[in-house]
């Protein structure tokens, strides 16, 4: 019987046994529901369209609504103005959260009036209303003094913004998208890597491993396990991406950056590479333990490396995606799975860097399988207490 069949049988068993388990299905549905919900719920439940709702109590000065609209423009949020004929109606609307604030200014601009709010006034509302009322009153005063309203309007124009490196909506969505991708990879590596870890310990704990290894080579068992659980991981990742991208497109709450079509396959690829790298390490370290509690101790070095890599990606790379830290981390196997897709999603990586990084990571995975396979076979039949890495290595060589 060829070895690949043996590996595939192991992988198939993992996919069928775990994929059909209630825990896996429920957790996947639950997470998918959260992803879809985070897009849909705000849109459906709260009819919060993001507009600024301000009420105006009549009688109001002429031009107040025009001034409010003009001063609201720089905030980028559309302004919706409701008028009220008496204070009771205005207060009712405030209580019902229909408006955020109500402006009550004497129609003759004889006083500054009041800004009525439910609990407190937001900065934006205060700034907009304040500027509008002050502006109107100053204009009225200057007009009395003989100043041409057109001249006043002319000097009321704020300075134009001239950004050296203007940030667009695309930049923001690209940044957000890149970060979501890295979080997905990190969480995927962790959850499925630990599935491999516990799977190895469970096989050892239930002693079934001795029966399995009477026909399956240790390295093949580890490979099949990593492959099978990896397929489940990829299925889950695909489901999350489809749910997220689908909801984003439907609800129109999030604009996909132009880098998305190339970044999504890269996220999938780097999830697989990162998962394979980390789960192999977790798998053979798990073989050193005899109980699940010990396994989490044995896995501490791997966990630490993963978290440090993630933090490098999160801070150093997003801060300066072409800086020296980002470039070095691109070619270091443990950090590459987090750093490369992040740089790619930010559009800040050369194609050759991606290719070289993939090659280095593949070599690292192969090396880990050779080393890990040996440690695994040396350790997996030892059931008396936790084993040392060196002993496992020696034991397999004897």
């Amino acid at each position: 019987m060829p070895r690949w069949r043996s590996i595939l049988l192991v992988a198939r068993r993992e996919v069928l046994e775990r994929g059909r388990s209630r825990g896996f299905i429920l957790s996947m549905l639950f997470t998918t529901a959260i992803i879809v919900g985070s897009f849909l719920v705000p849109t459906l439940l709260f009819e919060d369209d993001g507009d600024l709702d301000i009420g105006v109590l009549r009688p109001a000065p002429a031009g107040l609504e025009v001034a409010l609209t003009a001063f609201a423009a720089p905030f980028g949020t559309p302004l919706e103005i409701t008028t009220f004929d008496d204070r009771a109606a205005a207060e009712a609307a405030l209580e019902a959260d229909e408006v955020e604030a109500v402006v009550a200014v004497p129609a003759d601009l004889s006083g500054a009036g009041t800004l009525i709010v439910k609990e407190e006034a937001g900065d934006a509302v205060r700034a907009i209303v304040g500027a509008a009322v002050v502006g109107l009153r100053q204009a009225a005063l200057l007009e009395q003094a003989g100043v041409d309203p057109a001249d006043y309007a002319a000097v009321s124009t704020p300075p134009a913004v001239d950004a050296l490196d203007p940030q667009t909506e695309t930049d923001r969505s690209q940044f957000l998208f890149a970060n979501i991708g890295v979080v997905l990879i990190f969480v995927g590596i962790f959850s499925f890597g630990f599935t491999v870890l516990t799977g190895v310990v469970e096989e050892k704990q239930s002693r079934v491993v001795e029966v399995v290894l009477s026909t399956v080579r240790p390295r093949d068992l580890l490979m099949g396990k990593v492959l099978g659980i990896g397929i489940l991981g990829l299925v889950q990742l695909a489901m999350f991406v489809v749910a997220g991208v689908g909801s984003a497109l439907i609800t129109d709450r999030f604009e996909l950056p132009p880098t998305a079509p190339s970044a999504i396959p890269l996220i999938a690829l780097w999830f697989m590479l990162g998962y394979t790298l980390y789960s192999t390490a977790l798998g053979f370290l798990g073989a050193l333990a005899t109980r699940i509690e010990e396994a989490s101790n044995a896995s501490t070095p791997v966990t630490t490396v993963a978290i440090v890599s993630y933090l490098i990606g999160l801070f150093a790379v997003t801060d300066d995606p072409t800086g020296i830290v980002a470039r070095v981390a691109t070619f270091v196997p443990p950090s590459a799975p987090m750093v490369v897709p992040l740089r790619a999603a930010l559009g800040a990586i050369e194609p050759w860097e991606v290719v070289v990084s993939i090659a280095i990571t593949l070599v690292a995975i192969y090396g880990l399988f050779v080393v890990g396979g040996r440690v695994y076979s040396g350790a997996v039949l030892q059931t008396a207490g936790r084993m040392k890495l060196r002993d496992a290595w020696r034991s397999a060589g004897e």
Partner: protein
Amino acid sequence: MLEIDDLTKRYGPVVALDGASFIAQPGRIVGFLGPNGAGKTTTMRCVFGLVRPERGEVRWRGSVVDREARLRFGYMPEQRGLYPRMRVREQLSYFAQQHGLSGRDADAAATRWLERMGLGDRWKSKLEELSHGNQQRVQLTAALAHDPELLVLDEPFSGLDPLGTTTMTAVLRERAAAGVAVLFSSHQLDLVEDVCEDVVIIARGRIVAAGEIDALKRASGRRHLDVEVAGSGGTWLDGRDHLTVLDRSGDRIRLLVDATVDLDELLAAARRGGEVRRFSFEPPKLSELFMEAVADPTTSPFETEAA
């Protein structure tokens, strides 16, 4: 034929196997005996490549055992264990497929063997839902379902109730009759004497006796002499201090003697003591052979047979 040839294995300062050699023939059941820690499990693990010996090799049909050969072996380890949450038939089918059977053949074999073991209606159950006895049956079936040519069972009778023992015995006999070479370890010597034609006795990593049980008994230099002389109280034996008394109760005395002992002279002495009601001269029982063999290898009368 399975040939264990000169296996040697050390775990640090502990010598697990020290040049162990023996054979197991197709169609015969070999009982593999030895005190705890003598090297039985290590030997069996060597057969399945789970332990790599420092010296020596395992051959099947004349060639060194490799993975392809092992696909035709069935193994039941001492430490029982299967996948607790996997359904019984899928589990058996999985192991049969890992032994090279196609999916369809493996399913059919799993179904057939479950019927055979009286578990036909439990095929959909998870292993952990079965009783302890039934889990043992499934474990045995996992070693059998791919129709192996060699069966290696580490302590298959331990933890079995009398019903389970009967089933196990029947299965082993039936497999041997079908031409399978069966090797199993056990501490239940009476059971081994009942089930096996051949035994291999291992002590401190060395084979101290191997061969047909009857031949070993005949080859033993010792005999048991059971004598009952009515009303003598055993006094007829007085003065014969060179004889080893194994047991003495009233008129009955059990002696350990050399095979070359002068029986006529002893019988005459017994007759002088009174009416002889019993005078039986027998080879040792397997349990006695075992105790002698493992007691001290340097003086064992069987050591010459080991190689």
